[in-house]
């Protein structure tokens, strides 16, 4: 079972190392990890997608909370959140394939951000399942390079992470 967890941490030297080290030291897996500043000074948000059952998830959340630099852990597993991911996809596209690529890009409301005679580079945003879907369609046409950001998430409704 995939879980998306956001940890809001003090932007202290080495804090990302601490969080990542926690996962590896305890044998929790990291499918993807994303870190960036928030609108509050000195606070960084680290978003991790991990796998595990309920028991493992509970331990992950508790261990993250135990870190001194952690201000809050937000567990997005209960469904009341929006998840998004961005992918930059370079596909080889020659002659007969070029039109097909454009059709797929259009269907997924993605964007072409670079073009050569032999390739297109596509920017796609959406929830992780949408990204997986566009990739599945583009794969047979020839994926040259794939860059994914990993999922980030935000809660639905008017409240922020502080309440």
């Amino acid at each position, binding site marked *: 079972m995939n879980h998306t967890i956001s940890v809001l*941490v*003090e932007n202290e*030297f*080495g804090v990302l*190392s*601490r969080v990542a*080290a*926690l996962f590896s*030291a305890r044998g929790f897996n990291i499918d993807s990890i994303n870190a960036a500043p928030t609108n509050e000074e000195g606070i960084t948000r680290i978003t991790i997608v991990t796998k595990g059952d309920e*028991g493992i998830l*509970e*331990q992950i959340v*508790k*261990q993250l*909370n*135990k*870190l*001194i*630099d*952690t*201000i*809050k852990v937000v567990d997005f597993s209960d469904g009341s959140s929006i998840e998004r991911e961005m992918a930059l996809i370079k596909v080889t596209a020659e002659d007969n394939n070029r039109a097909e690529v454009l059709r797929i890009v259009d269907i997924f409301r993605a964007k072409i951000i670079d073009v050569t005679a032999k390739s297109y580079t596509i920017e796609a945003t959406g929830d992780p399942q949408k990204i997986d879907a566009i990739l599945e369609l583009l794969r047979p046409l020839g994926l040259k390079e794939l860059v994914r950001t990993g999922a980030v998430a935000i809660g639905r409704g008017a409240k922020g992470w502080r309440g």
Partner: protein
Amino acid sequence: MKMNGARILLECLKKEGVDTVFGYPGGTVINIYDELFHFKDIKHILPRHEQAGTHAADGYARVTGKVGVMIATSGPGATNTVTGIATAYMDSIPMVIVTGQVPTALIGNDAFQEVDIIGMTRSCTKHNYLIRDVRDIAATVKKAFYLARSGRPGPILIDLPKDVQIATAEFDYPEIVEIRGYKPTYSGHPRQVEKAVNMMLGSQRPVLYVGGGVVLSNAAEELNQLAHRLSIPVTTTLMGLGAFPGHDELSLGMLGMHGAYCANMAMTHSDLIIAAGARFDDRVTAKISTFAPHAKIIHIDVDPASIKKNVRVDLPIVGDVRDVFIKMVKQLDKHAAKADEMVENLKPWLEEIAAWKTKQPLEYVQGKNTIKPQYVIEKLRELSDEDAIVSTDVGQNQMWTAQFFQFRKPRTFLSSGGLGTMGYGLPAAMGAQAAFPDRQVIAICGDGGVQMNIQEMATLVQNRLPVKLVIINNNFLGMVRQWQELFFNKNYSQTCLELPIDYIKLAEAYGAKGFLATKPEEVEDVIRKGFSEKGPVIMEFKVAREEKVLPMVPSGASLNEMVCNA
């Protein structure tokens, strides 16, 4: 007042109530040592290895309840502290370790004696800090001490580059420091406490399972009140020894892999386990799927991450153990009649336990020719002071001490439980003696572990620390040999420590005294002589070579499937 970073550090330590530090000089801490030279308010003890200094700070912290302090230089000095830090981390001991670091401009450059100690100790410290600005020293030290001693205690490392020690700033010790991400819960929720008390009053075979947390929380008296109020039997982990008096009628002794038969049986047949300041470690639970099959579990712990980590918990109570015990006793006062009734109702359970004690007591046979290690421990107990402090090393010596010494007061037993660090016994005793110069401090070690920090004999003599070092010598790496005997066809691979060492000569080489017993009738005499020496002593006992620690719960077996005779 303006002063350099090194002096600021010392002034901060003084503000935190530190009067004793352990440490070893070097290039990146020479400025601190220069300031220390004139700093009258802190006593410094120089070990002969940074690992020993760290264990000494650990032993100091365990016996006093204060934060132990160790100072080491960068590079190899810092890496030498890692074992000691991990030891303290596993047992939740409050410590602050200050390591020197190369100047900030050289960090990351593979400079001379540079290591990324912050990276190395990330997973074995409660938290660590690298200070880059002299103006941050005061607040960082304050945070370090606060973190070290609060919530679930632990070691904090501060890495202090040389140029930061040399730079100057105004010394201004903050009144308060705020750590946004750290708000430990001390107060047990009253509703949870109420539920717990109801569960206790409804149980028929309850057991109190207590660990190091009861010692750290200074809750021995409250535990005693609670246990006796309802007549609930008490078993302690290795870390909890002394939290409940070993000679008390309700005491089951230690449980777990080498615990007493009655303790393990009580846990297995219990219908309610009240766990306090203990973490259901694998040495205690044995096979988890068959652990305490009939029991509901109440788990009291200040660290929420410890709860439900290994076993299912029916009623978690996050909070300081002492606080929760006080609340429980108060709650019981409201149900005085039911409580009294329970004391009556538990009689059959206590009889069942007494039967287990009689069926399989902790025993050994002391013959005429060879000294049994358990006999030495019992004699030490008999002849030692009422308030003696005992440290152990790791292995058979540790287990026999835990089984046979019978600790009655908290903060009198020092042992590396979580990490099981050989070489801990002697330096930990050293730290304890530094804290209490007038109390009797005994270090019980095996012939394996004692060699790992034997150089501390020099520290003992130089600082007049009259530690009594007992060596239980079976010329084997005992515990490993036991496993090789039971499970590996007696293939004693690399566990024979046959070389005879003249420990009397060794003691005298350092300026101490040594005594040797090779026959049972010499044991008492050696102990008396050793104890009456004014300075540090080595007392060596050549014991039976292939004695086993029993009972034993083998790997993969359930807690009640103990091997009692082998």
